[in-house]
């Protein structure tokens, strides 16, 4: 069913869809949807913890909480017309009509502009509709009126948790200190602990929450759901808390829906789907659970199953952007083409090859030109990683590349506009295709390599490795075996290292899940990569595999490090300090000097003071020659030498930049051109080949490379380039077919050669070179 048709169908049912618990669950769902981004989402169930809840509303809440949905609807409905605008707003909200609720709150606030509680409640409405940035100002206004309004403070903490930064934690600590029994704050803190698998701490917080809820007669369902989550993280799928919750409210889908979040942030999509299935079984109207179930079935490549649950979700909640976005994406999937191939690999200490199917899901507009490179890198990755991690893939690998970044973003986190490049969902990986971004904006080959490495670390540990470890392995593999040479550490990460912002390894996951400063996720990626590289260099690569095995046995980082490396995590941290000192010590200790040199050098470039440029670049290179990003010394030196007329040195500078892993496509094209002028065609070809992994959608690139390979007799490579070139729909296809014909002729494939030369002549009947080859191939010399 297309998205348009359900749009029409669903609007009629909107007004009768129930409601309250489902509306509340949207908060949790937001946390799930954004977790991969390491951005926290609102964590509270807004209505539950309003200490000033109107008694009529409370009565309805209790009916709802006991699972009698129809009776709850009957209870809330008349309250929509309550003379109190605040009560009417709450009733509309409970019934799922958030627009009406918003309007009613607006009017209520106009009526009572000095009522802080009203503003706090209005803020909660924004929180529940995934708009924390609109919610936060309302909470702040409420707190200006009443600095002690805890309901506003907890609301603000929830809103701030959706953004990176330390303010939310600070606020939570403040609430916990002033109001140690506040259930809502305790739940938020417990969730933070669960996210980083600090299960004992989470349990302690939840026990306190339980005690406080009992004392205050607060509905304990959310506490039960989090208790069940903690049990699930301990691999106890038959939690007593699940039973308790269902006894309290048989239709309480959140007791499964909430734990699903923790499966998801640990990459356990199969398990999450199982749990979400249970959520919709006990509560068929849990639209958010249907939505998440659909989204995660899609991650497992079950497109039909995904469609079914997303359509159900849409039928009940047509305003859920995750559902709408993903349904739209499903429609666009028809524009994609599945290309099948087979990857061959051999495990260590075995003598036989094994195979695994690979499906490349590429947009029809770019499948032809991109597939040769996706296939080449994927097959190489499977062969490399299966051997390095002693792991045989058990299921087909699905590799999806999206030319539209927003489609990829929706595929990944159900919302457009995120900054991710690629994501691995078990055996399925999704990423931006090279055409999704401007040329040179990212090295797509490295991204693909990184995501493919995830498959092996995630699956080898049966999804039990911590986030930092799988990211660390992927970064380490990018540096060690990926298609881009060199170790690329951004300047802001170097600065963070210099400022001692690295986390202890046992807390490193929090750098991904709950960053406290803007670039902490990136810093954590690099730190994880450095740790894995260090383990490989100090103890040997196999120790990484052994750690995956330990994680699979459900050991945590402290235990795995102790078992495999024989040291404590504190000692590992000290080793990392030593490793950084050995490898980056020069630039870290002289970081400010280096930055000043780069800044002065770039000023000199602006002013065309070429002698100064060269002098400053040389000084900077003494400190950190590996820097190849924007403002690189090597590029500046190239410009300077070129301006001074010293072409040989200009080319050497550019070659050094390339050897360190520089990948700006226009500069690579220039380097290849210069090398060709020097007669160094093999080196020029090497440079052009490197462009394929950055910006392969260039007609000139494939044309030049194809001709180079043809000239040097590498006919298979030439065919790859020419076939890719045809996929880019070049203006003159006749020449391409002729070159393909030459390559086949060289491979003694006369039939394909003749067919291609005829295809060349189809486009260009007067093409003499093609005519000559046809005569030669057919032996017709008349």
């Amino acid at each position, binding site marked *: 069913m297309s998205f348009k048709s359900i749009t029409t169908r669903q609007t009629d049912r909107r007004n009768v869809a129930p409601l309250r618990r489902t509306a509340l669950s949207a908060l949790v769902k937001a946390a799930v949807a954004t977790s991969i981004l390491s951005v926290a989402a609102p964590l509270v169930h807004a209505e539950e913890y309003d200490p000033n809840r109107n008694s009529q509303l409370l009565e309805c809440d209790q009916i709802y909480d006991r699972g009698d949905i129809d009776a709850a609807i009957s209870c809330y409905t008349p309250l929509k017309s309550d003379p109190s605008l605040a009560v009417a707003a709450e009733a509309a909200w409970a019934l799922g009509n958030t627009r009406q609720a918003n309007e009613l709150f607006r009017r209520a606030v106009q009526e009572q502009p000095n009522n802080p509680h009203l503003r706090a409640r209005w803020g909660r409405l924004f929180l529940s509709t995934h708009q924390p940035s609109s919610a936060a100002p309302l909470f702040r206004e409420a707190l200006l009126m009443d600095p002690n309004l805890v309901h506003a403070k907890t609301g603000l903490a929830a809103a701030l948790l959706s953004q990176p930064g330390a303010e939310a934690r600070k606020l939570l600590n403040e609430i916990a200190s002033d109001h140690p029994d506040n259930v809502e704050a305790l739940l938020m803190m417990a969730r933070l602990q669960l996210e980083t698998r600090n299960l004992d701490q989470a349990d302690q917080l939840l026990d306190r929450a339980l005690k406080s809820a009992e004392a205050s007669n607060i509905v304990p369902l959310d506490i039960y759901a989090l208790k069940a989550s903690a049990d699930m993280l301990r691999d106890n799928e038959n939690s007593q808390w699940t039973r308790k919750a269902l006894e309290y409210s048989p239709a309480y889908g959140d007791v499964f829906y909430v734990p699903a979040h923790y499966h998801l942030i640990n990459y356990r999509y199969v398990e999450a789907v199982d749990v979400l299935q249970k959520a919709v079984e006990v509560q068929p109207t849990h639209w958010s659970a249907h939505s998440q179930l659909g989204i995660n079935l899609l991650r497992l490549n079950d497109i039909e199953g995904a469609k079914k649950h997303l359509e159900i979700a849409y039928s009940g909640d047509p305003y859920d952007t995750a559902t709408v976005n993903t349904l739209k994406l499903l429609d666009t999937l028809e524009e994609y083409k599945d290309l099948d191939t087979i990857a061959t690999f051999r495990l260590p200490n075995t003598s036989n090859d094994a195979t695994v199917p690979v499906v490349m899901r590429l947009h029809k507009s770019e499948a032809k030109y991109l597939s040769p490179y996706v296939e080449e890198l994927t097959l190489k990755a499977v062969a490399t990683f299966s051997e390095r991690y002693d792991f045989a893939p058990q299921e087909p690998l699905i590799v999806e590349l999206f030319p539209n970044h927003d489609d990829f973003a929706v595929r990944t986190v159900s919302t457009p506009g995120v900054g991710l490049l690629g994501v691995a969902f078990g055996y399925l990986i999704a990423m931006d295709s090279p055409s999704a971004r401007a040329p040179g904006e990212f090295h797509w080959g490295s991204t693909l390599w990184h995501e493919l490495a995830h498959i092996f670390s995630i699956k080898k540990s049966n999804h039990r490795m911590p986030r930092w470890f799988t990211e660390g392995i992927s970064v380490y593999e990018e540096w060690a075996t990926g298609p881009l040479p060199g170790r690329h550490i951004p300047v802001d990460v170097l600065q963070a290292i210099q400022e001692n912002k690295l986390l202890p390894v046992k807390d490193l996951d929090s750098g991904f899940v709950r960053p406290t400063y803007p670039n902490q996720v990136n810093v954590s990626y690099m730190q994880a990569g450095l740790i894995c590289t260090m383990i490989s260099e100090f103890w040997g690569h196999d120790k990484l595999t052994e750690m995956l095995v330990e994680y699979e046995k459900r050991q945590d980082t402290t235990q795995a490090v102790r078992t495999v490396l024989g040291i404590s995590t504190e000692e590992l941290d000290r080793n990392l300090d030593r490793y950084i000192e050995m490898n980056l010590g020069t630039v870290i200790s002289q970081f400010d000097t280096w930055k000043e040199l780069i800044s002065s050098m770039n000023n000199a470039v602006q002013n065309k003071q070429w002698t100064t440029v060269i002098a400053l670049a040389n000084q900077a290179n003494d400190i950190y020659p590996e820097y190849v990003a924007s403002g690189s010394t090597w590029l500046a030196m190239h410009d300077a030498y070129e301006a001074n007329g010293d072409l040989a040195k200009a080319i050497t500078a550019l070659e050094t930049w390339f050897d360190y892993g520089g990948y700006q496509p226009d500069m690579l094209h220039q380097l290849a051109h210069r090398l060709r002028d020097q007669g160094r065609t093999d080196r020029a070809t090497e440079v052009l080949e490197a462009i394929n992994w950055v910006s392969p959608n260039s007609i000139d690139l494939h044309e030049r490379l194809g001709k180079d390979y043809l000239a040097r007799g590498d006919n298979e490579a030439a065919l790859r380039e020419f076939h890719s070139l045809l996929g880019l729909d070049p*203006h003159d296809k006749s020449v391409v077919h002729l070159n393909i014909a030459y390559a086949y002729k060289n491979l003694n494939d006369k039939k394909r050669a003749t067919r291609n030369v005829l295809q060349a002549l189809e486009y260009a009947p007067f093409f003499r070179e093609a*005519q*000559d080859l046809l005569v030669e191939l*057919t032996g017709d010399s008349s």
Partner: protein
Amino acid sequence: MSRAKLKLLKIISLISALGIAPGIAPIANAANVTVVIGGLGGSEAFAEKFDNYATAIADEAKRIASAETDVILLHGSAAKKEIITALFDALSTRTDINSFNAYFIGHGSFDGRSYKFNIPGPDINDTELLELLNKVKAQQQLIVAATSSSGALLEVIDTGDQTVGQRVLITATKNGREKTAVLFPEYLVEALTTPAADTDKNESITALEVFNYANSAVEGYYETEKLLAPEHPRMQGENAESFELARYGALLAARDQVPEELLATRETLANQVSTLRSRKDDIDEDEYFDTLQDLMLQLSDVQSQIDAASEQSEN
């Protein structure tokens, strides 16, 4: 003498110098006439670009023109309204024109109602431009408006009006609202001056091939750079392939020496190939390629004879 009369005399003398004598009786042989007008640059950089483009187009046209005087280039201060008008008035008296190609290179503007080609002094608006073009009596007329906003002309210049002969219009933009300076003329010149545009490899570059090349290059540029394309070239009118705009190789060197019958045979075979291609989906694939192979081998044979005739004339 009044200033107006003096000006008119100057214009007439300029046009005479360009090889067109107003009022002179038509000559017997059909001519292909090309007019290239380089408009106002507005800045030094654009002025230089427009001059270079216009000159390159005129040079290419001269290489295939029967007479150099059939190619008229107006640019810089010469591209004034009164001069252009006088030029078209002069051309209106000729009855020997088979093919007329007019290129407008530069900036165009559009105020929501009317397109203007920017030139020194008063601009030429779309109505005036149409009037000028309608004056020229030619079997076929190609108008290339390689300016910003030139797409506005698509609604003004009627390419279906057979009273002015067969007409093809190429514009750099799809409508008048695409107002930024265009890349199209750069690729237009590239198409005219490189064999790469010659997709059928007959050593003759037609208006269709030029448009396809330039259009594809413009699209490719914005696609590669991930920029929102501010220009979308358009072509309107039938049989653009019948306008020969450039030639290269042996054909350029010695077309006159090649026996007409060989060229005719080549054309016949090419038409047969074209017919076969149009039926490709209805024919068994192997049978299609077998037939194509036979035709191509015959074509190759004729081509060899043409080459031999060309080489002989060179010797």
